[in-house]
């Protein structure tokens, strides 16, 4: 009980700090934190598959990029898209894509699941990379950010970095609440059962394929929210948003932060992005450009972290509480 109260207190303090951050921080840091929160939403969506259902999807960027591209394609030339319609449409595009891909991949298991999710995502990557659709390999700019108006009242401005920050924060909160509710629901318990023992779930009367597919679609849709926000923040989409580098990075964030915990992936996303920035800005010394070889340091950190904290960085909190094991749904 006491530990729960501390956790709730820490969560509220964190939310308050995030809410107040733009009042004190410079533009660069506000944008950085917004970017981190977008990746946190993305990582939390993958965690629904990876941590809670045991589906190791190696193509999750497909759904992130799909909604970004959907926004770009929904944005008329020289005009702005409508936020209220483009967001649901972009997310629906990701969900639909997840439904189609999921229909095929969810039948496979283990290593094959990893391979086919990767293959589908790479097909999408090359569809945009090798053709002239939406600017080909260069990507496409979204010059005019979506407009969020009710009547004549402009509710918020997506070309204002502070407004974007708060919009992202709201969606991070919504994602947290949504996932929390789903995990406690009848559906959520079925996912947990599938993760632990799918065979027994089937013999108990659960058509596991349908539940895994539904989970795949939900995860794809939430990734779509993140992708839309990312396209809004940067005003550009390119094939990298769909590529396997991003799929791998978001998987690392989830594993680093703590699979199967609600906030672990968000922490993983923050640590990952801050380290990436930190290692990239390492100075030149002894004739070696350390910053250029940042991935070497990142790799070393991942190895250390996974060896020392196999349950993810979030398990530090449990260690401090003297429990030694990360709690899992």
């Amino acid at each position, binding site marked *: 009980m006491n530990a729960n109260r501390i956790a709730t207190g820490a969560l509220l303090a964190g939310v308050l700090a995030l809410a107040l951050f733009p009042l004190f921080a410079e533009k660069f840091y506000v944008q950085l934190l917004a970017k981190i929160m977008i990746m946190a939403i993305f990582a939390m969506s993958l965690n629904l598959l990876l941590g809670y259902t045991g589906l190791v999807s190696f193509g999750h960027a497909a759904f992130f990029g799909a909604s970004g591209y959907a926004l770009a394609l929904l944005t008329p030339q020289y005009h702005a898209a409508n936020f209220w319609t483009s967001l649901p449409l972009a997310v629906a595009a990701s969900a639909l894509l997840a439904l189609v891909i999921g229909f095929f991949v969810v039948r496979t298991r283990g290593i094959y699941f990893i391979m086919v999710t990767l293959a589908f995502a790479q097909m999408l990557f090359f569809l945009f990379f090798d053709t002239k659709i939406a600017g080909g390999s260069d990507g496409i700019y979204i010059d005019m950010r979506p407009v969020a108006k009710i009547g004549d009242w402009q509710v918020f401005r997506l070309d204002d970095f502070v407004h974007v920050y708060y919009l992202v924060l709201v969606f991070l909160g919504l994602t947290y609440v949504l996932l929390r509710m789903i995990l406690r629901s009848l559906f*959520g*318990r079925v996912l947990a059962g599938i993760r632990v*023992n799918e065979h*027994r779930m089937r*013999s108990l*009367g659960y058509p596991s394929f349908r539940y895994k597919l539904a989970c795949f679609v939900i995860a794809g849709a939430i990734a779509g929210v993140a992708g839309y926000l990312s396209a809004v923040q940067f005003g550009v989409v390119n094939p990298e948003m769909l590529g396997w580098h991003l799929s791998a990075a978001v998987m690392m964030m989830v594993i680093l932060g703590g699979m199967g915990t609600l906030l672990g992936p968000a922490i993983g996303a923050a640590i990952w992005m801050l380290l990436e920035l930190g290692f990239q800005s390492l100075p030149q010394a002894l004739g070696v450009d350390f910053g250029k070889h940042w991935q070497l340091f990142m790799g070393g950190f991942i190895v250390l972290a996974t060896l020392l904290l196999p349950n993810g960085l979030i398990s530090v909190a449990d260690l401090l509480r003297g429990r030694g094991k990360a709690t899992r749904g």
Partner: protein
Amino acid sequence: MADAAILRTQGLTRRFGGLVAVRDVSLECRMSEVHAVIGPNGAGKTTLINLLSGDLEPTAGTVVLGDADITGLASYRISKLGVGRSYQKTNVFLPFTAFENCRLAAQSRLASSMRFFRPALTDREVNAAAERALAAVGLEGRGSTPVAELSHGEQRQVEIAMALATRPRLLLLDEPLAGMGAEESARIVALLKGLAAEHAILLVEHDMDAVFAVADVLTVMVSGMVLESGTPGQIRSSGAVQEAYLGSDDAE
């Protein structure tokens, strides 16, 4: 015993490559009847149950449940039609509590679990069904313990409780007593006698005392085939059975 059979197999056969694990098995299970299948190791008893539960597809033959041909149906469909099974090798959700194992089993009887916002733990009927199943196998008070921390015998009890929590008409029990102590065994034997009133039970079991205590009908399998089928009395006095099984087998 006058009831019509709720399960009937005809010429049920399963091959694994060159091996015929189950060959031309025809048997019936009736309501309020315990039908025990016995036979030496490797006789095909577990394969038979797998064919009935949908864990395996038959190579040939039919399985009819009530009026429905369920041959080759997926296990979740067969489960939904009122067939519950337990596994010889404990097949549960080890990280979950005993209660959650049974609750998940009971939840499967809801029309659908595609309920994304309805909290799982507040469904009174499902909770009650899970509690009843735990109590039936003698695990009341152990519900909040993770199954991984239960003794082997208790895990076997959870295995049976899960099958019960799905409220089946037909129970397929694959060596429910294996690994249980004497006291637990006696309890489960008593439970089976009680369950027999309202269920059809197909029981695979090596414990002959238990088998002869609960079985109404016995089928003896050897090398995938039915050697003999009849009342316990008939089986006990069958020369063929004596020779092939009862006399020579003292394994387990």
